[in-house]
């Protein structure tokens, strides 16, 4: 396999990993399992499912994008395809 293919594969793996987390925090914790999670309380009086839906998922999205950007920059360097 060529370097270009390896780079693309590593990229796809990273994106899939990030999107799994993206799906779990929003659709999983915020919608599908919100009711069950609501029996747990965090940060004082937040029911956990409600917190994920209105706060936690958004914080996770922000962290995910920066993690993705950081890992991609590493991959760019490793495979020598960086802009500079």
């Amino acid at each position, binding site marked *: 396999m060529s370097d*270009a293919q390896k*780079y*693309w594969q590593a*990229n796809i793996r990273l*994106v899939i990993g*990030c*999107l799994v987390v*993206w799906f779990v925090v*929003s*659709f999983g914790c*915020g*919608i*599908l399992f*919100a*009711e069950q999670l*609501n029996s747990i309380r*965090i*940060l*004082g*009086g*937040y*029911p956990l499912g*409600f*917190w994920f*839906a*209105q*706060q936690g*998922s*958004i*914080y996770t*999205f*922000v962290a*995910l*994008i*920066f993690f*993705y*950007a950081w890992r*991609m*920059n590493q991959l*760019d360097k490793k495979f*020598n*395809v*960086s*802009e*500079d």
Partner: protein
Amino acid sequence: MTNLQLWTYCVVGATFALYIFIAIKARASTTGEFYVAGKGVHPVLNGMATGADWMSAASFISMAGLIAFKGYDASVYLMGWTGGYCLLAMLLAPYLRKYGKFTVPEFIGDRFYSQTARVVAVICLIVASLTYVIGQMKGIGVAFSRFLEIPFNYGLFLGMGIVFIYAVLGGMKGVTYTQIAQYCVLIFAYTVPAIFISLQLTGVALPQLGLGSTMADGSGVFLLDKLDKTLLDLGFNAYTTQKGSTLNMFLLTLSLMIGTAGLPHVITRFFTVPKVRDARSSAGWALVFIAILYTTAPAVGAMARLNLIHTIQADSITPDTSQNLKLDALPAWFTNWEKTGLLKHDDKNGDGRIQYVGKNFTGTDVNGNPIQNEMTKVDRDIMVLANPEIANLPNWVIALVAAGGIAAALSTAAGLLLAISSAISHDIVKGIVAKDIDDKTELMAGRIAMAGAILVAGYLGLHPPGFAAQVVALAFGLAASSIFPALMMGIFAKRVNNTGAVCGMLAGLGSTLVYIFWFKGWFFIPGTAMAADTAANWVLGISPGSFGAVGALINFVVALSISSVTAPPPEHIQHLVEDIRVPMGAGSAVDH
């Protein structure tokens, strides 16, 4: 002139002076500056500009009100309008920046070597952006008429005039720097009242933590528990639990996410940063700046609801309503907002006081008569606009909210108008009608298109079509079902060819339009709906607003299957795809 009006004139006037100052400083002299600000915008600043571009009058004025009245169910908007940035950052923005051209339809036309694909993309872009602009124009007019008490249309003309100056002169360059200023105004205007109210109710300054804290009244009860109990006692639905169907919540969230990632005026912002790397981090910064407002909004919604109820309605419901708001002692904000028609009351039982209860309430007053709801209209929008007044905040804070609402509406309107004018001057005029015009002529065409777009948007703002409220579903449906899948397959599926892409876009677009029109009326003309817009009629219970995700799926399936049985794209297109997948060499793509 009252003290509040004086404050409002000063604050709004100062922000307008700032926008005009920027317009004069940031004039565009080439098409590169007009369309993509010369690709020299710092990623953090671009993130800020994207925040203002994205957060519209709806985010600023309407969203907290939506949360206040829908509680947990409104989470779909919070997750949907932020989660799309993950898709944008990981699936689209860096690659489109690498391609390095000026508009979204241009990429679609080049990648699928098809003018038809480009024209379909232009049409989707214009319809989605124009429908969106109507709401912004309305927001500007409302903010002016309530806070400065000048007629709606004067407010609209003033707003159009300001946008005209900086968008026609500066193009993307002028829009970018004004959006940065507008972000600062709107986020300050949103968070300051939120901090005040959070301190009043919970003693915690940070609204994001205040929402999970105990009440400051010494009772030790959590704010959310108190809200749930108050609402249930008064016959409303509980706040923190789900009311709607899970399938629709799921699909609506997904549709809003995909639609967000596919809205051209947002995507174009990522064409303005210097490097591919910057496009990745800039999406993160954009979401940071958006998240500041989006994580504050739930606190504003919950606290505003609690404040509103407590101002009108006594703590506990007993036959004795003697603690309720008295008609002869209504606060100033109450009468002021009644003038706008957004708030109405009716003393049904004639006791001289207002009772504010939900439809599940069954109680009787001291005379044995049933207590009815007497707040006959509480418009959602007043939850943000009137919130500082309800909470008795100082006048300068209220003036700030007016300036913030106007900044949110202006910044989004300018971004949308720029997307429309670029599509007309670059994709239609330069791309199809008059291919050989030089840079100077194209720049002039861009300015004329911008001026025309402002006039059309202004006209639609003054004479909003009756369906204005329905069109948000349409804008997101179009972006989700046609633009996002085409862009994503253009990058990730090398095998997708012109026929597949065009058929996919038309299938996604067509199915979504038909589904929306079926329940809302053909072209939203009243009385032409094929079936009543109720859950019983919806296919599998999917609401028209949530259909965008299904349309996107149809687009993907059609495009991939047709491409697999027709000829693969020519060699140079396959090279193009391989080239946009690596960041190296993005600098050279700047040349046109």
